[in-house]
């Protein structure tokens, strides 16, 4: 048998080999930026999920005698709005609505966009059909779509999520399609085919896992975009219905008295910004951690 050549850049013999999942977790834990983003997200999720118990006040309860209390007022740490509603409590419940819409919308775009993207990239003949469909959706104004959907099915959080999800499908299809086109020309896909793999197997085991990082990045870009989209729709009255709070409706309400009580607009605005930033940071770190080729820090 041949003399084995030495392996460069490999783990030296004797070092315990870790599983993929443990490696990803370890990489995340060793990245301070990722930890910060993760912490912000965790706090946001806890606040949103347990808002019923954590919120100091009922978010819809008005306290007219305490209207326009500035931040720091005892009992109202982030102040109150024009009707004396507690801004902190409303942000907690607003976070719940925003996260709810964002997760639904992105899940919707994933469920529809990823399979269509894979099919368009892998099977030549249907590519033109799917690609023209994405062009059509892209050309259609998002707000008209949302207004139309609200007119047919009524304005609600769920319909806002569907509208945002539809708007995000073309981007997802295009990203997945181009990645599929790139991957299917690589030798390991040809190698899988000559080993007897069928189309479904190649797509599920060879193309999808390798496209995972771009899908994750696209999804994490989609979540903050969906949060902003929800804010826009609620601002226009097409999303969540008053008096229930969302970060978007809080902004829209606060603009009427922005000079008198700027905190009522600034606080939900900061919440949107932090949430968006945290999602972007976590998405980037996750992509780096999932890449088996990335060198260890």
């Amino acid at each position, binding site marked *: 048998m041949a003399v*084995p050549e030495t392996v460069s850049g490999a783990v030296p013999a004797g070092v315990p080999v870790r599983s993929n999942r443990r490696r990803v977790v370890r990489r995340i834990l060793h990245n301070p930026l990722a930890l910060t983003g993760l912490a912000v997200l965790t706090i946001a999720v806890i606040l949103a999920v347990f808002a019923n118990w954590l919120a100091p006040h009922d978010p819809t309860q008005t306290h007219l005698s305490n209207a326009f209390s500035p931040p720091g007022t005892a009992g109202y740490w982030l102040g109150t709005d024009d009707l004396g509603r507690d801004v902190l409590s409303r942000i907690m419940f607003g976070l719940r609505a925003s996260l709810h819409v964002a997760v639904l919308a992105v899940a919707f775009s994933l469920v529809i966009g990823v399979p269509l993207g894979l099919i368009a990239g892998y099977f030549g003949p249907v590519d033109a059909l799917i690609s023209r469909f994405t062009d059509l959706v892209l050309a259609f104004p998002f707000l008209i779509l949302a207004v139309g959907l609200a007119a047919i099915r009524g304005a609600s959080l769920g319909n806002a999520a569907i509208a945002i999800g539809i708007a995000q499908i073309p981007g997802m299809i295009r990203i997945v399609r181009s990645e599929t086109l790139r991957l299917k020309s690589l030798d390991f896909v040809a190698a899988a085919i000559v080993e007897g793999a069928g189309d479904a197997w190649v797509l599920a085991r060879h193309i999808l896992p390798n496209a995972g990082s771009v899908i994750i990045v696209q999804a994490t870009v989609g979540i903050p975009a969906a949060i902003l989209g929800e804010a826009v729709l609620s601002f226009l009255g097409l999303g969540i219905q008053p008096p229930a709070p969302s970060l978007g409706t809080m902004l829209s309400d606060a603009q009427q008295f922005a000079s008198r009580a700027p905190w009522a607009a600034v606080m939900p605005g900061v919440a949107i910004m932090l949430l968006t930033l945290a999602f972007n940071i976590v998405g980037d770190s996750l992509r780096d951690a999932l890449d088996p080729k990335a060198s260890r820090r």
Partner: protein
Amino acid sequence: MKPVLQVKDLSVTFRTEDGMLSAVDRVSLEVGDGEVLAVVGESGCGKSVTAMSLAGLLPRTATVDGSVTLDGTELIGADKRTLRSIRGREVAYIFQEPMTSLNPVFTVGHQISEVLRTHIGLDRQAAQARAIELLTLVGIPSADRRINDYPHQLSGGMRQRVMIAMAVACDPKVLIADEPTTALDVTIQAGILDVLRELRERLGTSIVLITHDLGVVADLADRVAVMYAGRVVETAEVHELFANPQHPYTAGLLGASPAAGRHAETHRLSEIPGLVPVLAEQPDACTFADRCPRATEVCTSSQPELTPGAHRVACWHPVRESVEV
């Protein structure tokens, strides 16, 4: 010897914007049980297209005519089901580029076990044990630890060994190696050739070796088919071909490759003038005529056919005298 793989009058044409291009023209090859057949020629001679058509890997723009039989089963025009049952089990492939031939997101052990589990139906543990055996067979040290490595943690030579391990996992009858050593260092090439030789001896695998490296041919092959511009121009047993090349193109190839014992000061390597012709409809002429020092009128007006016998050559004016190797 009954051939395991028999290629008869295989033609491959591509539909392009410039019309039909003929990449392979009525190629016939035979590979016996446990035999190593080398297919040699310059770049653009149709070697890789021939290899790809054996596994049905050609793009949709290609038209394939002729017959490829593996142990009596016709592969050209076979339905997807038949092809899938043959691929991996009966005929396996090794690609030229080891850096991209492995899936980067799974460990090498996982990739080998997956082939074993889907084709042979081994359970997880048996597949894992067999994967370690296979990696040991192809000369990977401490294979029990290496199976947990990702492809990027291995060097090019190691990856090529893993590719070979995966290709022979299901004990295929025929292994098609498309320039398996081209992308590797010379020292590592020798190791890979040792692995292929070992496989042939231990498992009795027939090998179709596609290469342009005559050193590799001399090292491993039993028989050689020389291709030029989509046609087989000469085929012979390896020692016979090296000692007594008949086609001027073969003689040119041998003259252009350095050999031990010949010194640069006294022996300038000869070259073949010109380039492989652009693929087109095959003319009724010898395709090598333009570059051939022995060409006469008949070469440009009529296409020579392969002579019968053990040493076959397609040439109007074959080289008769033996050439120093």
